[in-house]
């Protein structure tokens, strides 16, 4: 018996829709196995991961949990939406984490260096600066790829560590709050530099979540209805056909990196101006990397990414509640996220291939013959 992968003549619409759910199901099974190996009751663990953080849906007293979900989902969706354009155009931007930090740092210039500048225009300027910072940081690997043909996976990834260490140096060094008891971090932003909350009465979800939804719809429209989206898809799938169409590969590299950099930068400044309210050394809990999983789980479709962003945000919250309730290490979250990406990519194979199990030897006659 052997297993063969047979290429389908056309991609399967059924598995295109089914694959993320299949992957989620397999992740739950594999997660349950992982927890039982850790000596925990797998049903308890999965309950705390995926159900407990959602009790706010039916319990008004816990509605703050849904706000926390939106806070975690907002940067994931914003970044993943930009990454989807990158990946569709065959540009492997792995450095969204660095672009996120660059956006947070550049966006913080006004509230940190000009704390006396207090006006309604401060916040819009910060958001714009954040996008510009993320885009500029994304332009570095794009430039290297176009000019020197470097591998953007390596350059964008390495730039993440540069951004992290630069930010670390800033908040411990020249930008440190002199009244901060030597804790790393800048001064607290003024009220004009704080991103408002959507419904302050029930929780602290901020406008970043709205930005994420707007970005998802806008990019979805661009990708599915406009010439630009067509260009992205053609150059991503078939670069030579794209050149035949008259599209420029070099311009597409910049477009994809600038767009995803800008959205990651926006996510960065929203995180700093929203829930954190100042810049410190741990502004990201790996949003830039988790967003890669979000992008693929959402099938690189911006609307799918909204759903996938909420699911991955749930694993963050679930990780916290499971840690408190049954004492699972918070590293388990990372294992969960890794398994999810693994299963998503594996299940995507079924879109273009189908599995065939061959039981009997194919040749009915002539088996006894010599193989000389």
């Amino acid at each position, binding site marked *: 018996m052997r297993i063969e992968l047979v290429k389908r003549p056309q991609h399967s619409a059924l598995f295109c829709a089914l694959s993320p759910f299949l992957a989620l199901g397999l992740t739950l099974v594999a997660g349950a196995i992982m927890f039982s190996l850790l000596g925990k009751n797998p049903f308890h663990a999965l309950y705390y991961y995926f159900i407990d953080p959602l009790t706010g849906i039916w319990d008004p007293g816990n509605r703050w949990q849904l706000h926390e979900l939106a806070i975690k989902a907002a940067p994931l969706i914003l970044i993943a939406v930009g990454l989807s354009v990158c990946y569709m155009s065959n540009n492997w931007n792995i450095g969204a984490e660095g672009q996120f930090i660059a956006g947070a740092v550049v966006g913080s210039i006004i509230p940190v260096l000009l704390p006396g500048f207090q006006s309604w225009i401060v916040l819009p300027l910060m958001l714009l600066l954040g996008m510009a910072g993320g885009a500029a940081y994304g332009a570095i690997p794009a430039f290297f790829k176009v000019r020197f043909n470097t591998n953007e996976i390596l350059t964008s990834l390495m730039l993440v560590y540069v951004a992290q260490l630069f930010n670390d140096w800033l908040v411990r060094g020249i930008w440190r709050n002199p009244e901060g008891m030597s804790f790393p971090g800048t001064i607290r932003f003024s009220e004009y530099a704080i991103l408002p909350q959507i419904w302050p009465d029930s929780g602290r979800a901020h406008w970043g979540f709205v930005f994420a939804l707007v970005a998802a719809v806008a990019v979805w429209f661009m990708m599915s209805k406009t*010439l630009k989206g*067509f260009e992205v898809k053609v150059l991503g799938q078939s670069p030579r056909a794209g*050149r035949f*169409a008259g599209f420029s590969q070099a311009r597409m590299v910049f477009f994809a990196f600038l767009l995803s950099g800008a959205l990651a930068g926006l996510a960065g400044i929203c995180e700093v101006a929203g829930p954190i309210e100042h810049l410190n050394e741990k502004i990201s809990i790996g949003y830039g990397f988790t967003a890669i999983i979000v992008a693929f789980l959402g099938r690189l479709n911006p609307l799918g990414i909204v759903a996938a962003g909420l699911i991955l945000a749930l694993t963050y919250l679930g990780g916290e509640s499971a840690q408190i309730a049954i004492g699972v290490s918070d590293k388990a979250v990372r294992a969960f996220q890794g398994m999810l990406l693994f299963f998503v990519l594996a299940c995507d194979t079924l879109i273009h291939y189908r599995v065939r199990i061959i039981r009997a030897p*194919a040749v009915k*006659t*002539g088996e006894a*013959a010599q*193989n*000389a």
Partner: protein
Amino acid sequence: MSADGNGPNLLEVRGLTKIFGSLKACDNVDLTVGKGEIHALLGENGAGKSTLVKMLFGSLEPYSGEICWNGAPVRIGSPSAAKKLGIGMVFQHFSLFEALSAAENIALSLDDQTPISTIAAKAQALSYSYGLPLDPYSVVGDLSVGERQRIEIIRCLLQKPELIILDEPTSVLTPQEADKLFETLERLRSEGKSILYISHRLEEVKRMCDGATVMRHGKVVGHTDPRKETAASLARMMVGSEVHAVVRDAVEGMDKAEPLLEIRNLNRKPATPFSTPLKHISLNVRAGEVIGIAGVAGNGQGEFFEAVSGEVTQQDAGTIRIRGKDCGRLGITGRRLLGAAFVPEERLGHGAAPRMKLSENLFLSRYATDRKAFLAPGGIIKEGAIDSATQRIIEEMDVRKSGRDPEAAALSGGNLQKFIVGRELDRRPTVMVVNQPTWGVDAGAAAKIRQSLIELARSGSAVLVISQDLDELFEISDAIAVMHNGSLSNPLLRAEATFEKIGLLMGGAEPGHADHTVEVV
């Protein structure tokens, strides 16, 4: 059939079947090759010849049926098993490393640890004894396609096969090189070797082969002696119906028409170590005429197409002129906007994006020229307009497909090519440049494409056709130029051109000295 009475036949295939999904690529195929026989396997593209041969060579496993070798049933599980039995194969697409020498390439395919110098000496001796001279230390990247084929043949002969399978061997050769190959094959036959010769060129099959098996749609439609058939009767067996001949009216006063496409002293440095530089190419294509460019594959046709289409632009704007306007610095979109249309050689991945629908592939080459029809303000795509244009082209070119708007990769080669040519014809382009218009296309579709190119020219457009198929060029061109090693000869008028003259130019004879016999290197 043949070689009866001399013990068992070398190869007998009975009821061989291979199924891919719902397609029976080979359906109950019988084939017999006697000792010392050159046996032709005839059929159009997609008839199942390659599938059959892959099963004989062990790269595909049959679903059912029996293969007998010297009278005994065998199971050929892998190419190395086939080699051990004594089956050798020369593929249509070569598998050689361009950066290595001929001898190193041969050494790679042998399992043992023989030193390179021994292999080189053996290969050289063998090559001279069969009239296929070869320098074993030459680097493959520097060799012509004909010479590369020699390496493949020598590599195959070194393993002392009893049966040699040749897949479309002359499709990459000049007529003179093909003649040399035929001599070699006859020599092998006289030594008692058997040859399975795959081709769709009927004349050479009639000339050389002792027996023929004709396939159509995966089934054997007949075993015949090709010497007793005419080319027309063989074609009828292959295609299953009469193929309409292409009609081409001579036109008067062509030389007075204005040139719509002008190429002046086009040079291009090689982009990679293995691509061909273009040297001083000049050519005019006038309104109403079809100019053909002949040449063995890999002599700069691809580079030339990229330069003319604008996928690669030129320094000097005057190098390429379309409708009297300098456009050397314009990209492909700018040239399309001047009225030019292009069809590249490779259908999947160049002319069309494989995983995109036909309607998207229509939009691919026409979003700029048909901006008004296909795009609303803000760059929003008008799917309705594109869909109706797609259906119009499908109907006009008789594109057969499943579903209303399938992905390009789901179409057969011929049908996709009809769509890609139709996509450009639908614009009524003033200048049309086509590279290998009917490569791998079945006879019916090829006739349709050729006729539509002639009609486009007769309606007042300039048509430039690059092709390796000399029959095709003689069928549709008003004049034929030859590309060799990056240079282009002067065009010969159709009335003056002969296979021999063109063949000599393809082999590298100096233009103007076409009557001088040149040893083909």
